C-alpha cells in the first residue's frame, strides 16, 4: 500500500515520517524544506507500506517547483491513500489545501497535528464535526511526542482498503454554476482523461488560470480554450475581480466557515518569547540583543568545547608513545598508525567537542523561536547582497560544520540564492578558520595534517596548530 503525506510547510509531515520510518532528519523552521521527496518502506500490521513524504505545499496550484512536483506525483503515481497533515493551530489556512485535495477525489485521512499547540493558542477543535463536514476521518496527533501516530496509520490502512473518498464541498451558487457548465464542456471533449483528474478539479484549475494546465492545453484544442476564456471572463465580470481571485476567495471563505463551525476560540496563552518580542525585535535594541545572544552562544560553545577537548586530546597523545615502544619509531606501520590516530584525534577530540554543544545550542535557539527572529532582523542587510533573511541559518550553521550548512541552504527557494549562500559561506569559513570561530573545515585539514606529519616522522608537530595554519 502506498501512502503519501501531503501538507503545508511546517505542518509536521517530516516529523510523522521520521516517527514511523525510524530515523531523524534535519528539521528546520522554514517553509519548503523538503524540496525533494523522501520515501521509505515500513512494516506495519503485517503489511509493507511505502510512505512518501512530499514537499510542503500551500496549495495545489502550479506556483513553485516544489508544489508542482508534489501535485505531479499525486496525479502520476497510484497513491492508495493520502494523509493530509494539518497544523491544528493554523486550521483555517490549512483547510484551503484540504479542500483542494478533496477535489482530487483520492482516498484521504486527515491528520490534525500539533493539537497541543492549538490548545495553547486557545483553539479547541471538534474533531468529529470536522470529520463529518469533510467526509473523511480526522485523527488528532502530537507528532513530536508520537501521540496518535499509530492510530493515524491504522486508520489510513483501513481507509486505503476501503478507498474512502471525501465529500465535495460547494462554493456559492453562481460560482458553482460556472464550474458545472465548464465541467460539462470538459466532459464532452474528454480533456480530463489525459490529465487523469476529476472534471471538477480541472474546471477549477482552468478558472484559476493555472499555468501548467493552461500551457498543456493551448496547443491541443482551440475550441475548449475559447470556452475557458469565456467562463473566466464571466466570473471576473460578475465578481469584479480576476477569476483566480474569485476561486481562491471562495475557498478561503468556505474554510473560514468550516473553521468557525468546528473550532472554539478562547484567549491564547502567551508564550515567553512573544512577551519578549518588543525588546528582541526592537528596531535598535533588537540588534544589540542579537549581537549579545550570538556572543553568548559562541562563548558557551567554546567554553564547553575546550573543557572536553583538552582531556580527550591528552588521552590520544598518551596512546602514541605506547605504540611507539611496541613497534619502534622507524617502521612504516608505526608512521601509518600514528597518522591514523592523529587524524582521528583531530576529528574526535577537536571537532566533536565543539560541534555537539554548537548543534545543541542551535536547537535550543530554534525551539525558543529565536532563529526566525534573527532572519527577520537581518533580512534588510542580507537583501543588500541579494539574499533572503532566512539564509542567515546556513551562515550560523556554517560556523559549526560545512555539511549541515550546505544542507541548510535547501531552505532557500531558488538555485541562485543557494549558490550565493554556499559560495559566500565557503569564503567566510575559510577566512574564519584562522580566528578560532569557524571550526568547520578543521576536521578535513586536521586529517590531512596528521597524515602528512606522520609520513615526515615529525611527530612532535602540534596537530592543533597545523589545523589553524591550514
Amino acid at each position, binding site marked *: 500500500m502506498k501512502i503519501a503525506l501531503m501538507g503545508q510547510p511546517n505542518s509536521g509531515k517530516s516529523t510523522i515520517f521520521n516517527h514511523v520510518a525510524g530515523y531523524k532528519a534535519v528539521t528546520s523552521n522554514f517553509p519548503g524544506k523538503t524540496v525533494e521527496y523522501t520515501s521509505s518502506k515500513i512494516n506495519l500490521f503485517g503489511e509493507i507500506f511505502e510512505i512518501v513524504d512530499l514537499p510542503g505545499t500551500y496549495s495545489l496550484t502550479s506556483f513553485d517547483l516544489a508544489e508542482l512536483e508534489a501535485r505531479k506525483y499525486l496525479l502520476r503515481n497510484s497513491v492508495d491513500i493520502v494523509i493530509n497533515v494539518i497544523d491544528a493551530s493554523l486550521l483555517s489556512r490549512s483547510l*484551503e489545501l484540504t479542500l483542494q485535495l478533496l477535489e482530487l477525489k483520492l482516498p484521504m485521512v486527515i491528520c490534525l497535528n500539533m493539537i497541543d499547540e492549538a490548545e495553547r*493558542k486557545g483553539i479547541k477543535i471538534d474533531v468529529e464535526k470536522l470529520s463529518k463536514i469533510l467526509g473523511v476521518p480526522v485523527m488528532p496527533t502530537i507528532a513530536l511526542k508520537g501521540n496518535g501516530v499509530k492510530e493515524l496509520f491504522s486508520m489510513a490502512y483501513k481507509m486505503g482498503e476501503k478507498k474512502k473518498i471525501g465529500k465535495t464541498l460547494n462554493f456559492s451558487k453562481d460560482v458553482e454554476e460556472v464550474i458545472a457548465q465548464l465541467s460539462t464542456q470538459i466532459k464532452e471533449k474528454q480533456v480530463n482523461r489525459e490529465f487523469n483528474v476529476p472534471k471538477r478539479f480541472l474546471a477549477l484549475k482552468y478558472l484559476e488560470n493555472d499555468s501548467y494546465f493552461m500551457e498543456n492545453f493551448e496547443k491541443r484544442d482551440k475550441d475548449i480554450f475559447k470556452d475557458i476564456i469565456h467562463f473566466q471572463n464571466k466570473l471576473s465580470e460578475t465578481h469584479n475581480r*480576476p477569476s483566480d*481571485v474569485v476561486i*481562491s476567495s471562495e475557498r478561503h471563505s468556505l474554510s473560514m466557515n468550516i473553521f468557525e463551525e468546528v473550532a472554539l476560540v478562547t484567549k491564547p496563552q502567551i508564550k515567553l518569547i512573544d512577551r519578549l*518580542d518588543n525588546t528582541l525585535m526592537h528596531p535598535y535594541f533588537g540588534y544589540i540583543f542579537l549581537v549579545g545572544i550570538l556572543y553568548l552562544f559562541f562563548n558557551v560553545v567554546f567554553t564547553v568545547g575546550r573543557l572536553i577537548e583538552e582531556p580527550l586530546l591528552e588521552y590520544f597523545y598518551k596512546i602514541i608513545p605506547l605504540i611507539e615502544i611496541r613497534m619502534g619509531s622507524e617502521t612504516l606501520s608505526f608512521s601509518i598508525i600514528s597518522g591514523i590516530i592523529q587524524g582521528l584525534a583531530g576529528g574526535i577530540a577537536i571537532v566533536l567537542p565543539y560541534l555537539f554543544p554548537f548543534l545543541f545550542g542551535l536547537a535550543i535557539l530554534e525551539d525558543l523561536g529565536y532563529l526566525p527572529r534573527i532572519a*527577520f*532582523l537581518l533580512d534588510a542587510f542580507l537583501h543588500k547582497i541579494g539574499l533572503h533573511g532566512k539564509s542567515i541559518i546556513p551562515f550560523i550553521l556554517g560556523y559549526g560544520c560545512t555539511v549541515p550548512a550546505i544542507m541548510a541552504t535547501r531552505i532557500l527557494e531558488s538555485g541562485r540564492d543557494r549558490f550565493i549562500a554556499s559560495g559566500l559561506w565557503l569564503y567566510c569559513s575559510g577566512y574564519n578558520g584562522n580566528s578560532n570561530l569557524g571550526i568547520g573545515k578543521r576536521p578535513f585539514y586536521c586529517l590531512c595534517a596528521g597524515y602528512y606529519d606522520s609520513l615526515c616522522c615529525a611527530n612532535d608537530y602540534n596537530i592543533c596548530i597545523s589545523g589553524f595554519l591550514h
Partner: protein
Amino acid sequence: MTITLDSIGENQKVKVISVSGGWGIRQRLGCLGIHPGDIITVKKSAIMRGPILISVHGNQVALGRGVARRVVVEVEE
C-alpha cells in the same frame, strides 16, 4: 486615496482591499491567508526598509517591503 501595506505603522489594523500584482503574487498571498476583505494587524516593521511582520487570522507572517507595497489596504477604526 489608496494606501499600501508597507506604509502602515506598527500596531495598526487594516483591511485588505486588493492585491495589485500578477497571478503568482495573488496566489501566494492567498496561500498565506491574505485575501481581499481580510483584517491584518501590522506587528513589527524592521529598520532600513526591512520586512514587516503582520498578524492575520491569528497567524504571524513576515512580508518583504516589495510584496507589502502590492497590498492595497484601508485603515480600520
